């Protein structure tokens, strides 16, 4: 049961994380297969008909389609990464812009009460605080 669960979790993790990459790779190979099949059929037909008028052009077209498909694949996948990076940069910029405003005296409701806690290395428990008070 656990084995199945681990497998399922791993598959879901990879699917969620690399869905675009997996789908685009499958599409790329699909295009390769389709173009290759059509071209081989055309080559067979031209051999049967013994007319090699457009055979060289067909090879050029085939490789052009391959190159275009690879270019589209690279653009689509790099755009996803670039988009995520740009989003992260924009988020950090807005956070940086928002931080000084709150320091300058925005209303108390806008200040995050947890900001101090986020920066602390270790949090004190209720018991720690009682002990500290008694020490004083």
């Amino acid at each position: 049961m656990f084995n199945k669960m681990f497998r399922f979790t791993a598959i879901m993790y990879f699917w969620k994380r690399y869905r675009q990459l997996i789908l685009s790779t499958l599409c790329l190979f699909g295009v390769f297969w389709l173009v290759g099949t059509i071209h081989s059929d055309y080559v067979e037909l031209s051999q049967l008909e013994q007319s090699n008028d457009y055979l060289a052009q067909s090879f050029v077209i085939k490789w052009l389609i391959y190159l275009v498909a690879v270019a589209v694949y690279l653009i689509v996948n790099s755009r996803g990464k670039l988009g995520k990076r740009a989003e992260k940069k924009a988020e950090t910029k807005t956070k940086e812009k928002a931080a000084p405003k709150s320091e300058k005296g925005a209303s108390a409701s806008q200040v995050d009460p947890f900001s101090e806690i986020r920066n602390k290395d270790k949090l004190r428990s209720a018991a720690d605080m009682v002990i500290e008070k008694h020490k004083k």
Partner: protein
Amino acid sequence: MSLQDRLFKRFGSQLREKAIKRAQTRIVLVGRTAADLSPEELEIVVEEEESKLKEELRDKGVLLLFALLGISWLG
């Protein structure tokens, strides 16, 4: 900073964020807001949630280890 330190720091900050979210939920459930509590009280609530999270992770880790070793409670 070494890779290990960075990983621990990242894990710690993620754990803290989760604890803060849980603390916020807990505060909302009792009909108050985070602004109503003092920083010390908030620290106590977040600390409690963080230790609960750590315990949960520890328990899950032990269960996972048992599962990997093929040990089951039911025999």
